[in-house]
């Protein structure tokens, strides 16, 4: 069981985490006809927007209540009202997701109360579904913001189930913040192969999967519709991915009576099996042949790939659920987790990470620890690039943000195929780093004495 170490520093160097409001905005982007709006100063939105654009390489609708000096002193309710009205008139969204920031939360306003009054006095806002999540930057990180936004959506939109039994073979899927469009596609296709009709909340596979529409859309295009969300109570089952999705899954269950299951991850053979077994149970069907073949391919990839994992020293820096998932995957393939740095301690599963210590800290903690542990591979998001350069250790980019590689949203690490891909990716990093062996490699075993050096070894350097 890992010991959780809380950093006692006052200075965070090279932040590992992204902010909670950004996580909330990402969740709102998985709703159709949506515009996320951060309730804060214009910079709050600008930074979040730029980072999201760089990660997804898509135009991102994201607005701001543009809190200025006056609103900072007098309160932000007027700005919120004006913003909702402007946004509704200009962009004609079907859904507006509001996420609060540290600025308005520090003032401690009753924003939910303000929003009620605003909606009551503006009939034109009734056409739009408006959801509010309280996500100050000073508490939590990406996973927390995402989870709070999904909870808020469920709370606002999902209808309680009536007395009628479910008509459809519907299954609700609540992906975590680190599930890409590619991951979600795998979940959807797999559920469909069991004859189930999946409703995904939020569904970035609809809105951020890189398509070229034939007309201009100011809001998100694709994603789950408000109507589909309202009918999530009609499902047979809800499956949520990641510990941070436990709260939304619980709310869904208590609201609708639909039973729910939280799976910690979909990466790895065991986790993929758990998902498939769940679908088989819910649908009362046997796994289709295609899936059986995929599983066999993964097993083969594990056999081919395990050579490149055994005795490999892995350093991971990520949000808690992603860290737990990746650590379990690497450990299952025989690698040693020598460094584990989590952005927050907001997951009870952190103690299960197969390593001695999990540090709640930043990328400087990550870099220092990886250097001291002589890691073979760094696993974190794109901001690990500086550490990778300085230490000369290869970097596997994963998490948020990945801004210096293409295809982030399509990279699938979920299920049999995704796990297979990840094994190949890691093994290929290892293979490309193979070097021709030289006597110096084994110098620690018996020091090379120049006078007695074998003639054939003189030119070998590495």
């Amino acid at each position, binding site marked *: 069981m890992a010991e959780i170490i809380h950093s006692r520093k006052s*200075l965070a160097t090279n932040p590992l985490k992204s902010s909670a409001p950004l996580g909330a905005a990402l969740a709102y982007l998985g709703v159709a006809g949506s515009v996320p709006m951060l309730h804060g*100063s214009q*910079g709050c939105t600008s930074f979040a927007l730029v980072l999201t654009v760089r990660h997804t390489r898509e135009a991102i609708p994201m607005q701001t209540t543009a809190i200025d000096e006056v609103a900072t002193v007098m309160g932000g309710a007027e700005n919120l009202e004006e913003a909702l009205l*402007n946004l509704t008139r200009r962009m004609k969204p079907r859904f507006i997701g509001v996420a609060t920031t*540290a600025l308005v939360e520090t003032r401690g306003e009753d924003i939910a109360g303000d929003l009620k009054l605003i909606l009551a006095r503006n009939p034109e806002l009734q056409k739009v579904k408006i959801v509010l999540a309280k996500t100050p930057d000073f508490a939590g990180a990406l996973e927390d913001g995402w989870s709070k936004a999904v909870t808020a959506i469920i709370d606002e939109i999902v209808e309680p189930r009536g007395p009628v039994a479910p008509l459809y073979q519907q299954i609700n899927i609540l992906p975590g913040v680190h599930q890409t469009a590619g991951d979600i596609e795998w979940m959807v296709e797999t559920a469909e192969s069991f004859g189930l009709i999946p409703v995904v909340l939020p569904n970035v596979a609809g809105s951020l999967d890189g398509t070229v529409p034939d007309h201009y859309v100011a809001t998100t295009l694709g994603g789950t519709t408000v109507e589909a969300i309202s009918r999530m109570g009609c499902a047979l089952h809800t499956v949520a991915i990641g510990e941070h999705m436990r709260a939304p899954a619980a709310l869904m269950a208590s609201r609708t009576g639909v039973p729910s299951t939280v799976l910690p991850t979909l990466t790895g053979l065991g986790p993929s099996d758990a998902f498939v077994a769940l679908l088989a149970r819910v649908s009362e069907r046997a796994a289709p042949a295609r899936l059986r073949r995929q599983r066999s391919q993964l097993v083969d990839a594990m056999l081919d790939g395990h050579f490149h994992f055994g005795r490999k020293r892995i350093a991971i820096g990520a949000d808690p659920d992603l860290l737990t998932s990746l650590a379990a995957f690497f450990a299952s393939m025989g690698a040693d987790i020598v460094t584990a740095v989590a952005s927050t301690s907001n997951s009870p599963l952190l103690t299960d990470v197969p390593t001695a210590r999990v540090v709640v800290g930043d990328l400087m903690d990550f870099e220092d620890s990886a250097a001291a542990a002589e890691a073979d591979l760094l696993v974190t998001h794109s901001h690990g690039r500086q550490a990778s350069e300085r230490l000369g250790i290869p970097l596997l980019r994963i998490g948020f943000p990945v801004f210096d590689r293409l295809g982030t949203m399509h990279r699938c690490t979920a299920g049999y195929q995704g796990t297979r891909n990840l094994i190949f990716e890691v093994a290929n990093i290892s293979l490309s780093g193979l070097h021709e062996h030289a006597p110096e490699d084994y110098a620690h075993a018996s020091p090379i004495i120049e006078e007695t050096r074998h003639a054939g070894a003189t030119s070998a350097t590495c």
Partner: protein
Amino acid sequence: MSEALKAKIAEVFNEPGCDKNQAKDPKERKKGCSKPLTPGAAAGGCAFDGAKIALQPLTDVVHLVHGPLACEGNGWDNRHASSSDSKLYRTGFTTDLSELDIVMGNGEKRLYRAIKEAIARHNPPAIFVYATCVPALIGDDIEAVCSHATEKFGTPCIPINAPGFVGAKNLGNKLAGEALIDHVIGTIEPETISNTDINILGEYNLSGELWQVLPLLDHLGVRVHACVTGNAKYTEVASCHRVSVNMMVCSTALINVARKMQERFGIPYFEGSFYGISDTSDSLRMIAQMLVDRGADTSLTDRTEILIASEEARAWQRIEPYRAALKGKRVLLYTGGVKSWSIVSALQEIGMEIVSTSVRKSTDGDKDKIKALMGGDAHMVDSIPPREMYASLMRGDADIMLSGGRSQFVALKAKTPWLDINQERHNAYAGYDGMVELVAELHKAIVNPVWQEVRRPAPWEQSDRDTERTALLEAAC
């Protein structure tokens, strides 16, 4: 917000060096340079963002952001200001204020300890401490913490008081300039001075653009003492008050620094640009003339003309191979508008046609220049809503759009060639070499066969169209 900060903002809004500012009546001036923001319809960064943009390129100092996570966590190491030496500026430092710090009022203490930790680990020549909204709201006095820390540790700690809610990016640029004037420039005496020393203000060495220009100045024997702040070291900026001339680029971002250095240290300044061939030449001429006026060897003027002649000839010769492919191609130029005329003139010189250019941030003088270049103001636009921009590009009004990342996907989704000419770009377009590079990039973007490929109809569209045609023909019979 503290009275000191209010006074500082009022001062920045009254900029005698700025033509646009001086043309306003006192009431208008009081409202400031940035237009009031519309909630729900605003774009662009905050004052803190602007301050960071202006100062972050200073390479060897610790840039410490005092605030909750998002301010630094969502935006660190996100630009391509280059450094030939220290990489410390690319490290993200923040106090990452927690709820407890805010509730307990521990902000100042945490900042002080963070400064101490940063010095212990990195021993920088200075620490720049940036205020953000939350500490400003709860009344953290970063000036007091900085002055105490400076005294205690002997490392200059520079307060940058530009919390996000005070305004937009441009205001942040200026507040950053104020911090340099108040706390940095003139605090160290330079080791050497000559009468051909200059500073360049408002150049951030994005993608290494400074290095496209420095060889030209080297050739003339002109030494850039400090570039504020591209590839700058702290001591260079701190001791940049003994040069003969300040050149101000990036329009008016740091105009307050230029003007105050003139008042305080008697250094004349001019506004120039290294974008475009004729602009580069004009700037070199201006530097030479002002240096000669200030006592440099008069031969500098002739040497400058010789350099200009040979560099211009060389640039045009290198551009020539692209001319045929680019001639007559229509460009939609959509930038902040700062000095867009310098790019307009360059593109026209190679025979491209400008269908429209944005003039959002241009001064009246800039607009006059564009009018003269393009014949009338029909093609000048303030801003284009993305929907209209998309429609225009879909109609094929332009063969290429040049803009910043914000409108990138409007062009790409309209399957139109696009070139990044904003600060996030990876290519350097300064000086003569930069212009050749820009033309080569334009050419690369336009001639790429991918545009024909991506516009190819899908098989089902093809058959839909055939079916439609058959139906039409049948109907006609």
